[in-house]
């Protein structure tokens, strides 16, 4: 028993020590309520000085009770500086809390900045360890700040509408291009593929955000804007995304196809390791979503044909448009590079050949039904 009493002494001392020490918490301990979450960063060209940047930080403010709060609480910090790092350092002095970039999921860049010096400011995002590489990148029109400042009415207390546009967690539409920061950077830096970012616009009354266009970005070149239709085909080809509205017309028949699955294969045909043509196979499975006539199940094969033809035309249109502008959002060049043995001239050879490369597309649409009960 004596032995046990002795160890009690030790325990009592340790307990007193810890209870004293625990009250003496210093200021090094930063709790979650001493941090403020930056959920979006906007980058605009500076209005005052040439070559500078205007940074907009969108801060999500925590709400004490979600049930009683009506809408989201945001605060915006804006500063113009020569570099991003500088501006953000200064912005740290504009708030009483620690800026926490761990939840920065949205990087919005002014459309006008996506021509030159992209590397310059992207470098900052990639280097900061707390901005995660899974952040979404988007181009903004007319300015990043104005886009960040849009607060749609449908937005709920603790959520960020802009983030839900991208990826598959929120809306899931083939018109929306989603690009992660790492994807953007990788595609921009590699030869043979051009990065594509979504273009975010606001409605005229500044109450809604609209994301259905995309920009193909190439360094030192004016970005190519893809309209909604082209964005859709881009997403279909690259991501196999499928959605409602693939229109097919023949004579007086109008069909809107609802695709469920899309499979795309493409090949660069080479002769003597020189690219001669691009061969693309598209296979789609879906149902007819809307039609202006009564359809019969017997004629399904016929509708398949009509649909295939229509989709094929659209895809060729899209591919030749970007090809004409000498952009390669699909990454044909990258595929070519991966197919041939490396030598110094690989990429220059490809660049020479690409603008005139013939593209063969074969589309096979398989309709599962007419979409109606007979």
């Amino acid at each position, binding site marked *: *028993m004596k*032995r046990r009493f002795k*160890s009690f002494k030790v325990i009592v001392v340790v307990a007193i020590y*810890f209870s004293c020490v*625990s*009250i003496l*918490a210093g200021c090094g*301990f*930063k*709790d*979650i*309520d001493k*941090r403020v*979450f930056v*959920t979006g960063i906007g980058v605009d060209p500076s209005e005052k000085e040439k070559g500078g940047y205007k940074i907009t930080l969108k801060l*999500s*403010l*925590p*709400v*004490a*009770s*979600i049930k009683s709060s009506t809408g989201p609480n945001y605060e915006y910090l804006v500063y113009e500086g020569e570099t991003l790092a500088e501006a953000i350092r200064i912005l740290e002095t504009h708030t009483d809390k620690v800026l*926490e970039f*761990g*939840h920065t*999921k949205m990087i919005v860049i002014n459309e006008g900045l996506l021509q030159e010096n992209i590397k310059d400011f992207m470098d900052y995002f990639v280097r900061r360890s*707390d901005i*995660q590489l899974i952040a979404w990148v988007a181009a903004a029109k007319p300015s990043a700040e104005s886009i960040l400042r849009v607060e749609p009415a449908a937005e709920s207390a*603790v*959520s*960020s509408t802009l*983030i839900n546009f991208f990826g598959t967690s929120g809306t899931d539409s083939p018109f929306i291009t989603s690009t992660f920061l790492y994807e953007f950077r990788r595609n921009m830096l590699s030869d043979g593929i051009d990065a594509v970012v979504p273009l975010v616009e606001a409605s005229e009354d500044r109450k809604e955000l609209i994301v259905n266009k995309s920009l193909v970005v190439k360094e030192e070149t004016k970005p190519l804007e893809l309209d909604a239709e082209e964005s859709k085909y881009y997403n279909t080809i690259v991501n196999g995304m499928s959605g409602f509205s693939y229109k097919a017309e023949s004579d007086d028949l109008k069909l809107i196809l609802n695709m469920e699955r899309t499979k795309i294969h493409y090949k660069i045909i080479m002769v003597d390791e020189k690219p001669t043509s691009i061969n693309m196979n598209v296979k789609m499975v879906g149902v007819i979503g809307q039609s202006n006539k009564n359809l019969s199940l017997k004629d399904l094969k016929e509708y398949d044909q009509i649909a295939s033809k229509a989709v094929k035309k659209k895809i060729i249109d899209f591919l030749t448009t970007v090809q004409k502008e000498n952009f390669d959002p699909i990454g044909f060049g990258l595929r070519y590079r991966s197919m041939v043995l490396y030598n110094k001239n690989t990429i220059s050879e490809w660049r020479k050949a690409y603008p005139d490369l013939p593209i063969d597309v074969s589309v096979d649409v398989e309709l599962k039904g007419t979409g109606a009960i007979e």
Partner: protein
Amino acid sequence: MTNLKEKPNPPKLMSELKEQLSPSFDVLLIPLQLEEEAAFLLYLKTAVDGDKLQNMIIKPFFEMKSMQHYASYVQSSPDILEIKSEEKIPLELTKGSVLIAVQHQFFLIDVKKVNTSTVQQTLMEPTVYGPQQALSEDILTNLNIIRHRYKEPTLKIEILELKDKTHNDIAIIYDDQTVKPAILKTIRKRLEGLDSPLIQSAGELQLYLNGKKFTLFPTLMLTERPDRICYNLDAGKVIIMIDGSPHALIAPVVFFDFMVSMEDNYHLFWITSFTLVLRYFGLITCLILPALYVAITSYNPDIFRTELALTVAGSRIGVPYPSFIEVLFMLIFMELLTEASIRLPKAISATATTVGGLILGSAATEAALTSNIMIIIVSAVAISSFVIPINEMSFSIRFCRYILLAFTTFFGTVGFILGFLGILMFLINKESFGEPYLKMYWKSRRSEKGVKSE
């Protein structure tokens, strides 16, 4: 009384013994006398069973034809004890034996009275379908229960006597066929090496058998369930019982033994699997959740989803102390509540839980002393710590989470991971009577037992 001959003199040994035991009031030295012949009884009145003494010892004396007959009658009693040495006699008397002197011969017969032999209901490890009776506080009754449940001739029971002041019997029970001789040897050695002055319960015995001064995790399992005892006997383990304690000790044990409830054997496969998974989930929850809260809210809030981070931040608005004090404060109150409801009489403990749990909890959040989420975490931790079937392990895990909390408070998420690794390494390094504590038994239960069929 007049026709009585003069009182015969008791043998010298008896009067000496009486002298030695006096002045206790209950030492009795009574002569039995029938005509010429006499016998003497020496016993402690408070230790023996009066009825038994009357029927077994005194009555036959007057019914026998001669002293010779009586002597052989006494000699053939099933309760007779061998007199090893004269020094041992007083000890036997205090245990409830009676010393009989017949014709210059001495006999020691066990007529002890036991008031603790009622079998109790299972309290600590209740099951829905399993046996409802636990053990009693009398070792003979307990051994009887075990014999009754495990009718194998290979079941061996060895009795040792403690060297302390209680002189309690200790039983070592094992199945000769399945037990590992090395473990048996270690246990015998440790039991013989015990030198503490007073050991009164199985829990205390367990402390001394541990072999180490400071222990956090139990290396022997304390159980009150006869079915668990038999289950473990079958698995080749050694059971140690001490007189006066309604619990048995099982050695050696591994960590995973503490996560098994006997109920598992009585349910369907998928239900058992589900509850087992649930139990391990509870174990992990109650171990890491408080530390995880500190790690995430104070060091790496980016692990959360954005919505959750904002909610947590929102619920902490106005909370004056940093997260670890908040956690510590709530955990300590929860421990107090648990401790209070254990110690209080059953009738009051329900009130304590209501007042403490419900009122204190909601008032603490109203007063912005803690966040809502903290209350959820503390309740989750409290509930999940009760999921661990063996109470001792539950206590150990409850202690461990403070270690983890301390590490996390000082070193953040890295500290949390290191602390967890440390606990893991500690457990892996641990041994229970030569068996690795955290050994993963990937083998089937059947091959572990070394028998072909269940």
